[in-house]
């Protein structure tokens, strides 16, 4: 009896320790990420710049270039992974995430619409780069269509009493519809504008200023609070809707509310940084293997893993072909696609 309780306490301590070491690892990786790059800063220089003792040059590099970029990666990674983790729980589908529910595709269509129809950006002829003349217009349009996609899914499931399966399926249908619409827009657009759209959809962590970061951070923080208040509900939902109801969970209410919160979070992130696929899908799955399905631990661990993955991917994107920065969306997809395939076929094999 005594033995029994001690092993449980030890087990809980192990989980907490694991999450703590994940957080430490993230901190160290982030410091390294700030120092890594063409300016050749050392970790020591970064630290002294962070605490206000460094040279003016290193302070400018750290605060104006590296830090916004890495914090953007961290906030986006946290938000996408937490949202993906919650979507997988409430839809009872291992493949649920922003990029399989039409949110990313809705955002991509919105951005295409803003750039091509409203003229918010074009390719810069001289610099071989892209100028987005009104980034807020692009973000607003992307957000609008990303949320529209979510609202259609939620509306259908609310009025037609849809099951989680049909919610996922309607997400897939909407993804296809929005990609089709975006393709049609691009087909009739000037090539310089198409280039701007393509660049936007690659995802870019370097274009966000502190204002955008604060908006994203607040959204992610609020959603994390809501998610952690619901962690026992997610645990109960794993045993099936009927058992969850018998444990006092308002199944429909929790499902609609958490779908809305996780989709809004993903939509805000995607509208600011572009399409970053697969982080929301792979982070929860990677860590699920290690830490189990208890959402008390899975939720923070997924968020930390997502952050770590995105910070590492971004640093890789900056270093691999420096000084060229590779598109972050391509790096995460390249990383994620093999795992996605593995998950799909593992699911088929088991059923």
């Amino acid at each position: 009896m005594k033995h029994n309780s001690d092993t449980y306490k030890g087990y809980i301590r192990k989980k907490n320790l694991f999450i703590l070491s994940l957080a430490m690892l993230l901190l160290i990786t982030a410091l390294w990420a700030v120092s890594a790059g063409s300016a050749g800063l050392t970790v020591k220089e970064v630290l002294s710049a962070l605490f206000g003792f460094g040279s003016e040059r290193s302070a400018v590099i750290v605060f104006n270039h590296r830090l916004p970029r890495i914090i953007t990666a961290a906030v986006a990674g946290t938000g996408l992974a937490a949202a993906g983790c919650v979507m997988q729980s409430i839809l009872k589908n291992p493949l649920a995430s922003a990029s399989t529910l039409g949110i990313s595709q809705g955002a991509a269509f919105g951005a295409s619409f803003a750039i091509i129809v409203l003229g918010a950006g074009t390719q810069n002829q001289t610099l071989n780069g892209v100028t987005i003349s009104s980034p807020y217009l692009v973000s607003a349009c992307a957000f609008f269509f990303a949320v529209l996609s979510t609202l259609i899914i939620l509306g259908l499931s609310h009025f037609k009493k849809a099951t989680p399966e049909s919610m996922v399926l309607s997400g897939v249908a909407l993804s296809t519809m929005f990609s089709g619409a975006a393709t049609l827009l691009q087909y009739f657009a000037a090539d310089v504008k198409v280039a701007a759209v393509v660049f936007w959809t690659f995802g870019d962590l370097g274009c966000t200023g502190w204002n955008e970061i604060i908006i994203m951070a607040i959204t992610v923080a609020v959603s994390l609070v809501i998610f952690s208040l619901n962690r026992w509900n997610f645990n109960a939902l794993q045993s099936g809707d009927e058992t969850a109801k018998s444990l006092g969970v308002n199944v429909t209410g929790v499902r609609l509310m958490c779908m809305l919160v996780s989709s809004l979070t993903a939509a805000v992130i995607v509208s600011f940084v572009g399409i970053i696929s697969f982080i929301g899908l792979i982070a929860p799955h990677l860590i699920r293997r290690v830490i189990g399905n208890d959402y008390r631990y899975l939720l923070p661990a997924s968020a930390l893993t997502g952050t770590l993955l995105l910070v590492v991917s971004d640093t890789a994107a900056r270093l691999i072909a420096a000084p060229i920065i590779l598109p972050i969306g391509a790096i995460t997809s390249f990383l994620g696609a093999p795992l996605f395939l593995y998950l799909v076929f593992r699911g088929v094999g088991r059923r």
Partner: protein
Amino acid sequence: MISVENLSFAYGRGRTILNDIDFCAPKGSCTAVLGNNGAGKSTLIKCLNRILEPQGGVVYADGKNVRDLSRHDIAKNIAYVAQRSAAQRVTVFDAVLLGRKPYIKFEPSREDIQIVRSVISRLELENLAMRYTDELSGGEMQKVMLARALAQQPRILLLDEPTGNLDLGNQYKVLETIRQITRTEQINAIIVIHDLNLALRYCDRFLLLKDGRIFSHGGIEVITPETIKKVYGLPVTVQKINGITVVIPYP
């Protein structure tokens, strides 16, 4: 104590599954819900704690109208174990701890952990406590789910075929435990069960369902060759062997 008045249920506007269900069961009793496949047994127990919303009728749990209670209050009064439960990558301890969910605000209290431990030892699951539920056998899983329901400390226990996956020894042990708990805690158990002999041994009230209506309800006297023949369509004899009433089918 549970009493049900005039309960009816249908899926949408479709076929009625349950009609005019009226029964009550005193504190400390075990009620067996019997009937052939599709008679509405599972639907009936799901209507009692509003997993399914009944179209008509009233359910009183210890005198309280279940319709007026919040989901959390229902969960504190009535626990439910489904026929099948999906195993997850969660330890047995945590799976049982889930039964404390209606009581947990943010973190489980010392008392919650204490209750989980005592339920685990009551069902002799100590050796499995730190195992993942997706590594358990069907029968072990069924015991874990029963433990979770007991951790809810309910006044009414709804069990859908709790012995379906258990071996012979465990069938008797688990039902004996359920009977003991209902007697000592003075709670109700409502058990959907197919094994008539197990029902006769451990239950004291019998509810025979046929085509969504109560065919017969009462003590052991309602189990006669005539009622069994009408409900299951099989000729049987009901005999006492060594003081134990048994049903022997003659197909």
